[in-house]
């Protein structure tokens, strides 16, 4: 359902809702489209015949036994995308990264929109939420 195609809206400042809705809609769609493309490329390259799906219960003792196609950082994903031939599962991982960043971009887009509509208090709230998200992402990078 496109955000533009949905029902009525009568609240003041509805432009902010529409803006965030568009970011979430198109970000979600782009992320999932990349995953679909990656999955189709993987199947076309014989993945369904040759690849053993290592998704069942496995004994995991660290990164050394990480199955193929599991990426743990953005440089790993971009490295596999620029390799010849590119890894189709890296396209899926890129979709994951896009999806992961979509809510963050949505919150970031809300800050100038709140400022434009004179809602400084909510611009500050969105700023605090964005800072917390970025702090968490930095912590995740450190953990990885």
């Amino acid at each position, binding site marked *: *359902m496109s*955000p533009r195609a949905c*029902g*009525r*809206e*009568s*609240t003041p400042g*509805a432009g902010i809702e*529409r803006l*965030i*809705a*568009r970011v*979430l*809609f198109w*970000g*979600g*769609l782009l*992320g*999932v489209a990349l*995953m*679909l493309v990656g*999955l189709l490329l*993987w199947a076309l390259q014989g993945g369904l015949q040759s*690849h053993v799906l*290592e*998704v*069942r*219960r496995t004994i995991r003792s660290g*990164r050394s036994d990480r199955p193929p196609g599991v*990426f*743990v950082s953005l440089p790993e994903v971009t490295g596999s995308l620029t390799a010849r031939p590119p890894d189709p*599962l890296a396209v*899926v*991982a890129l*979709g*994951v*990264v896009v*999806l*992961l*960043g*979509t*809510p*963050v971009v*949505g*919150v970031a887009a*809300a800050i100038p929109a709140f400022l434009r509509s004179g809602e400084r208090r*909510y611009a500050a*709230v*969105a700023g*605090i*939420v964005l800072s*917390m*998200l970025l*702090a*968490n*992402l930095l*912590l*995740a990078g450190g*953990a*990885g």
Partner: protein
Amino acid sequence: MAPITFLLAVFFTSIGAGTVGAVLGLGGGILLVPILTMFFQVDMHYAMGASIISVIATSSGAAAAYLATGLSNVRIGLFLVMATIAGALTGALLSDVVPVPWLEIVLGLALAYSAVATLQQLNVELPGDVPDDRLAVRFGLEGVYYDRRLAQEVKYRATRVGRGFAAMYGAGVLSGLLGIGSGAFKVLAMDHFMRLPMKVSTATSNFMIGITAAASAGIYFARGDIHPLIVAPVSIGVLLGAYFGTALMGRMRNTTVRKAFLPVVVYLALSMILRGLGIHFP
């Protein structure tokens, strides 16, 4: 199971989980993790990784539609998500200090109380007049949406915001400590404490769960818990399911959504208490 059968089975299961998740504001993870591990023998880490990404997919699909129709309230969502993320950070920091079993029992009892409270207002369609709240007035925590089922415009205003905020912080702490999604707690805090219409509560929860999931999904990604061949069929299926769910909820009554939500709360309460007592429960 052949790879193609596995991918298609996970895809169609995820459509169902996404539909339910979008209607109930849960993200679908509560259903997906047990299904993936029990029926598809997926490794628990990969199931949880796929679940957290599916929460963002549900949120992106459902929140986009709910925000555009006015069902999801972005101001209430952003205000409360501050408490949830702060709680999640606290929970992550406390994870080595707090005895988790005790916490699970306390949480389970709190959920059981919420189930009783939900039961008491099972047939309440709209909250009606609520007492004025200083924080709600100051932050403009109110809104209006057009209810297609009731064929009328519904105005609402939050009350007992302090309690709702504290409940959200608690939900965040538990989320950080136990590694669980907290969609159900968000819905309960908005429905029970803040007296928002049930559909507004689940729709706003859909917006919030995407933000809180994004806060922790990076950790799952960095740990190598996101397997592309599980996350792809799950995310595509869940996003499709979320679109069906949003179309479905517009036509549902608040009371119907609450009745569908009640078994989830009962299940969660039992699950938490039994886990706290050391009894394995899916």
